[in-house]
């Protein structure tokens, strides 16, 4: 990845990263994690039905509870219809919705009592990605790429995979480079056809014609660059075409899941209809990480079908969890088996939780958006495994102690990657911008 800008400021440039294997920028301090894979449960995964065990909520089931809700249809408290059990050596609570993740509980670090700034999907997803609820800010993947560069110039450094059934709210705004250089934007791998936009040569193109055309172009561009010494972007263009050609060779191989063993495919759930699409993305994600991709972001759910259980919590969350549980657990176990979990950060996030009170009643009862308390998890490098941090009140309405902000969550992720969230800045429109705005404290309590 090559970049030139005329900004002339003291920010670090991702310049001349092409060609060499370890052309990444040095981090601020020794990193625990070298790469990230994030699975985003779009729509709002209910904390009180997955990781945040609330016997008090069940005891007060049906009791009234006065709280404002986004749709203004708040009913009474509703205990989780799903059974919780303590799992593994660690005794981490995980509900029956996630049996596979439950078996991996000893590798998870669950963070309870998180808070978001918006009760509305798009801004809340945006905050989880960018720290801001407004449009136009860089995604965490873009920040990390900006801070650390890439390990493999033949592949995009920040890869995004969306749910084939529907896009997340906000679409490509969610993996935008914002005001950072375009080079760090997320590359959305298509669910069919070319994984990378314009990767394949046009259909019917004679490969010989392309080869000769590229030779002619190379000569022209080299000559032009030689005639303009001192304009490094012209050399960079020559290299960019070489890289592009290599990417054309590399990406299809990396993206080819047929190269995986049958047992790996089964582990992720490629053989089952409900798990197939997320399994595909998780397995591809792991392959990309192996090849040096810095940041992989996978969306589960989107505007069409998501974890947004306003009605029929049981049907919705059971269905979504069936799609989610096995591939994600397989990803963790697979990374572990390959020795990669120790320097890979896995993050399971959602934009907000769901209300302890019901929305609707009876079989169709669901839960409304709840940004005031929810749970996310991390796993891997530098974290205390089998550990739950923070907590919520008796019914999961508010954090029990200090809330964990998304800024804190981001600050911690950056810290694990060797980046100081207060130092990873970019000057834009009068402000040295950060992923964490003016907030954020590293959650020291979850660090190993």
């Amino acid at each position, binding site marked *: 990845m090559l*970049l030139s800008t005329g900004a002339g400021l003291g920010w670090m440039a991702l310049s001349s990263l092409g060609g060499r294997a370890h052309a990444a920028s040095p981090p601020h301090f020794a990193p625990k994690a070298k790469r990230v894979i994030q699975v985003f449960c779009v729509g709002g995964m209910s904390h009180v039905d997955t990781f945040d065990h609330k016997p008090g909520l069940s005891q007060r089931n049906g009791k009234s509870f006065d709280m404002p809700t986004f749709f203004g249809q708040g009913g009474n408290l509703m205990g989780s219809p799903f059974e919780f059990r303590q799992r593994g050596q660690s005794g981490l609570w995980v509900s029956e919705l996630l049996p596979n993740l439950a078996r991996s509980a000893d590798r998870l670090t669950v963070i309870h009592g998180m808070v978001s700034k918006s009760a*509305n999907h798009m801004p809340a997803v945006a905050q989880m990605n960018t720290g801001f609820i407004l449009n136009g800010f860089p995604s965490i993947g873009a920040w990390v790429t900006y801070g650390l560069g890439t390990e493999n110039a033949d592949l995009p450094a920040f890869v995004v995979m969306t749910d084939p059934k529907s896009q997340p709210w906000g679409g490509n705004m969610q993996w935008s480079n914002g005001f950072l250089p375009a080079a760090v934007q997320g590359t959305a791998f298509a669910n069919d056809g070319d994984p990378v936009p314009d990767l394949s040569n046009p259909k019917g193109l004679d490969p*010989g014609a392309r080869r000769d055309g590229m030779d002619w172009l190379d000569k*022209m561009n080299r000559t032009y660059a030689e005639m303009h010494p001192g304009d490094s972007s012209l050399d960079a263009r020559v290299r960019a075409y070489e890289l592009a050609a290599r990417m054309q060779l590399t990406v299809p191989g990396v993206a080819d899941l047929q190269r995986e063993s049958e047992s790996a495919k089964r582990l992720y759930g490629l053989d089952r209809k409900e798990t197939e699409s997320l399994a595909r993305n998780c397995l591809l994600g792991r392959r990309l990480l192996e090849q040096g991709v810095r940041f992989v972001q996978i969306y589960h759910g989107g505007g069409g079908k998501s974890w947004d259980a306003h009605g029929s919590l049981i049907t919705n969350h059971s269905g979504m969890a069936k799609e989610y549980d096995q591939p994600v657990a397989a990803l963790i176990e697979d990374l572990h088996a390959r020795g990669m979990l120790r320097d890979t950060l896995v993050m399971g996030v959602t934009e907000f939780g769901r209300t302890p009170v019901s929305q609707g009643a009876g079989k169709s009862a669901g839960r409304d958006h709840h940004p005031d308390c929810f749970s996310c998890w991390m796993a891997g490098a530098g974290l205390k495994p089998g550990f739950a941090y923070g907590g919520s009140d008796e019914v999961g309405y508010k954090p029990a102690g200090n809330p964990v902000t998304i800024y804190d969550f981001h600050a911690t992720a950056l810290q694990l990657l060797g980046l100081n969230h207060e130092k990873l800045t970019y000057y834009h429109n009068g402000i040295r911008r950060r992923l964490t705005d003016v907030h954020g404290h590293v959650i020291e309590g979850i660090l190993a």
Partner: protein
Amino acid sequence: MSCPQVRAVALSLSRALAAVCLPAMLAGADLEPAAAEILQRRCITCHGPKLKSANLDLSTRAGALRGGIKGPALQPASAAGSLMLARIDAGQMPPAAPLPASEREVIRQWIDAGAPWSSAIQEKRAGPDWWSLQPLKRSPAPEAGGKSVIDRWIQTRLQQAGLKPTPPATRRALIRRLSFDLLGLPPDPAEVEAFVRDPDPRAWERLVDRTLASTHYGERWARHWLDVVRYSESEGFERDSLRDNVWRYRDFVIRAFNEDKPYARFAAEQIAGDVMPGATRDSVTAAGFLTLGPTDAVGLTSAVEAEREAVREDMLEEMLGTVAQTFLGLTVNCARCHDHKFDPIPQRDYYRFRSVFASVWPAIGRDESLIDVQPNSMPLLTPPEKAERQQTIASMRGRIAELESEIAALYRSARPASARPGARVFARWTFDTDGRDESGEVHARIPAKALLVDGGVEAAPGSETVVITTTPLKTEVREKTLEAWIRVNQLPTKAFTLFELRNQSGYRGASVDGMQFSAGQSRHWENFSIGRFRSENPGGGAEDTAPGRLLHLAIAYTKDGRIHQYRNGQAYGRPYLPEQGTPLAKLQTYFQGDAIARFTVTPGMRIEEARIHASALTPAQIAASFAAGIVNHTGTELRARMSSGDQARLGKLESELAARQKELAGLPTPEPAWIPSIRPAPASRILQRGDVNRKGDVVAPGGVSCVKGAAEIDLAADAPDAAKRLKLAEWLTADSNPLFWRVIVNRVWQHHFGAGIAENANDLGYNGGQPSHPELLDELAIEFRASGGSLKALHRIILLSDAYQRSSRFDPAAAAKDSGNRLLWRFSPRRLDAETARDAMLTASGLLNPKMSGPGFRPFDVGNNTGSYKTYTPADSADPEHQRRTIYRMSVTSAGNPMLDALDCPTPSVRSAKRGSTTTALQALSLMNNAFVQRQAQAFAERLKRETADPDEQVRRAFAIAFGRAPAEWELAGSRALISARGLGTLCWGILNTSEFLYAE
């Protein structure tokens, strides 16, 4: 949104941080710099010599010892006795973010070590003496250096730095440079040759004038402006719905540039063009600038009021932030939560500025007084036209209402006395001859899809579900009964809501109470009550009424929150019982002026009569009502009962009514445009820490106090919107406002040279840095102001300078001293921006469609998801509309375009002062394989074949079109070989991918 309190030292420059993270390892000598770094980052912005919050100045040891209003801050060698550490340890300071433990530890050790403090900590912020805030000042220009004042200043700085400028560029290079710069298009080969051969010594000047006169100039420079004003044609956020009429603003900008509209007028129209005296449709369109930003349409409908308010505050910050950055180059938006950390902008100024725009809303919602039919738009009318239309519509509607009332009275007088309303009900619709309320004024409007037949209302043939709505209630309703007589020929298969009361106020959770059918259980009636969730199936049994028989349904809402349903006079299932003590399940209020009634008819089901009672009828009353039944009267029957005089009068009234309705429907529809919608707003209050729940003092509208010179805006806090914006426009564009003139001159300079005199065109405050040639900037600003704000005159001055005409030849010796070329020893070559690259390809291929103005082309497919949210997938098309210049591409926030994005096209809706210029493998892939590029390469080849059959000529022609020059011998040979081996298409593809094609030097 807020901004960093710290001006963090860039990573690559500072390693002090590593030390901060490991306090235990600090030796005495390292303590001072570490502590100084923390003080500077964390404390000095407030407790520095400029702001001196709490009268405390921590920039010097003396200041710390003297302390502030709470006493001395520092007691050397005693951390425990030092107030500053006590405040830090208590988490009180800094207020927004407590210090991490490691930093506290550094401060503690440093104080205990005696607080060594060898020099004052420099404050990093601007005061009122900051350069950009000073009045424009003409400095005597140096005498040597050239004819142009530009060159004299530039030459002086070059000489001071010991630099020599490069020689003038060739004419071939110059015309290409100028053409891309002013028009965004490559020059025509014939023009290149003519200019190169032009013997006139004033050939350049004449070329500049000719080029400035081209209408392509407006298309090119409008794009720069659209970047700054975050031009977008969709609302962003969750739905990202299209805004179909924003293109008029784009056309306004193109026209303004082409007509060289005086800059102050151009600015004023964008601030207040919709309310200014002598407003034109053009100026009204210009005001759309204010609301080009994204709209969180879903957030605005939150049931939580504080959330709606916060969303609105974000919108206002976006709006006023854009105004301030666009015209003042100041980040006023940073002062929303606190005084600006770097510039002398107190929080109070933010809220004064906010007050000016408090009534400005995007054109969402409808204005019934104007019959506004298109979503995301307002009728494009000047204030007098608007007033006239409102008056015309109101008078037509008034006459229609009179006629309807007279007609209704005639029909009612013809009814037998027994059929006239007996017991007083709140509202009653017989649907005999109209939708009028027989006992009150809640009239239903019968839509065209419904028919009044045989004394009832039903769906017109061919219509599916038809919803009939009423005018709003005139008095509020709490306890109530809804009653309806219906006739069912065929039970509807789909769920529907027969009859409901609904608060309209637009927010999620608006109350609804009504009766619905087949909602949860097929063929069952249920109460339908949202807003405090109370919908429930009462278990009343499946509907089995005989076809054609009258069916009576009623639902009563009692004071204690119960809901009772009845069918044919009998209780239907069990009542809904709110749980004791549940505040959420209470009886709802339906507000006057807000709530309406709604009825639904479906094929096979008609409503014969409906009533609302403002009380919960008892079971006995319901039974009696059912027993009394209803009498239907048809229009024919009633007309037959009328006297011949009344019949004649009715005929006259009805024909006038039809004529009037036709007249109203036939009113010409004004063109829709994206212009502000003005809504009443309370006086602006300071929000502490920007929090809508912490409202402080009311403030009057105002400009920004650090901008001296312009007269203060002297208006009351509750001044009307028009007055506030007109005054602000006057303040902003005043001759005496130095920022207004400096900012635009700097922007123009930046686009000509690639970098501004001040490098950050959107920020001339502290963080924007110092200008490279301040005197020159002022000189040009003064000239520009004196010219009446003529941008073309400004371009001319710049383009005629030697500095602009220099060669871009690289000089290692000069680069060693000034690698960024800030002093302009050469002309920096630049890659074409995304739009220009695309337009240049279209020019080479000959496919460019020169059509100007009008709605843009849409290079995407629109996908519908659940709800109202859209997805956009890029789509290439050979349609001529899609071969227009890229500025006519519809700019949709979430509709990316892989090729344009890879060429650093910014996201619409983001203010962008300057384009990036990155080089990536993905960019190369796009240029190699994108379907658009393939098409252009093919068309380029076909064009060449049409023009000449000789391969050598084809190569020469291709080079002339793409590069403005002849091929060298080796290029000719190589290209000829490529054509013969792989065809002309391959060569054309190669040309479009060359650096030379994509760069202007």
